[in-house]
């Protein structure tokens, strides 16, 4: 995984694979630390350490590397990764990385991650928020609202995809999530 955008896509795929139909994402930057919280309504995790590479739900092979890799990336900057079942039955995943740390991975194209996710899993609703400086959450993408306007095949069209990309990217840049290491 070369950047956080790849990691983010990977954990969104985990939610989808766990049968989630609704995924809520909150992103923010505070004191040069990037944090992300993802809440889904999937099947949840059993009583096992999913950040252990030898614990996986897949059957094609016996290792799962997605979460251990992200955990390592976060911890190597002094950050953390937590994953636990929510009261509603899905999973809540939180991680934080110090973007000013020498070992920090660049953000990469996070807006592209969301556009790719929306394209790849049209049946899943993604709700994306950014946490602003005054701690208020701002909705920057709402699948349900978008689906009220465009249908599935319209959503696949370049012009619509570009619109979604631009509207997400603009808001991410405002809070300092830029392609490289953010604006301080």
């Amino acid at each position: 995984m070369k950047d956080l955008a790849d990691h983010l896509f990977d954990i969104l795929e985990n939610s989808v694979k766990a049968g989630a139909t609704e995924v809520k994402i909150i992103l923010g930057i505070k004191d040069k630390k990037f944090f992300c919280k993802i809440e889904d309504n999937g099947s949840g995790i059993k009583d096992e350490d999913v950040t252990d590479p030898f614990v996986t739900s897949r059957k094609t092979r016996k290792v799962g590397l997605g979460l251990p890799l992200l955990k390592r990336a976060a911890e190597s900057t002094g950050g953390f990764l937590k994953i636990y079942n929510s009261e509603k039955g899905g999973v809540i995943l939180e991680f934080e990385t110090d973007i000013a740390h020498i070992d920090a991975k660049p953000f990469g194209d996070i807006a592209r991650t969301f556009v790719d996710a929306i394209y790849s899993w049209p049946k899943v609703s993604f709700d994306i928020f950014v946490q602003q400086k005054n701690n208020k959450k701002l909705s920057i993408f709402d699948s349900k609202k978008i689906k009220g306007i465009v249908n599935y095949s319209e959503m696949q069209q370049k012009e619509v995809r570009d619109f979604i990309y631009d509207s997400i990217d603009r808001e991410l840049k405002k809070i300092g999530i830029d392609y490289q290491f953010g604006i301080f």
Partner: protein
Amino acid sequence: MKNLEELKKIRERVKKDLELRTGKHRIKIVVCLGTCGIAAGARETMNTLIDLIAKNDTSDTIVTTAGCAGFCEQEPMIQIYIEDKEPVVYGKVDPKAAEEIFEKHILKGEIVEKYLFSKGK
């Protein structure tokens, strides 16, 4: 979310465009997007293919995604399903390879041996 009015306008344009070319999807390209695929750059491959479809106006072709196929060392992998033909799987498909495969396999129906991983079910 702002600018929903703008999206409505875009939608009107796109809708008209889509009405002009309604047809069935004849070709399906599946990009493997498990952890292994993502780490190997499969999202770039996917976006290259989506752009090529738009550029060539091959609206009978769609790109969808799947998880890990179990051959992680071959990632990024793509599977191509063409109506009435055996499925074909390609391995190590970076954006450049995707362009070549698109040009030869999707547009002309020729298999690109260089990236071939398997044929048939």
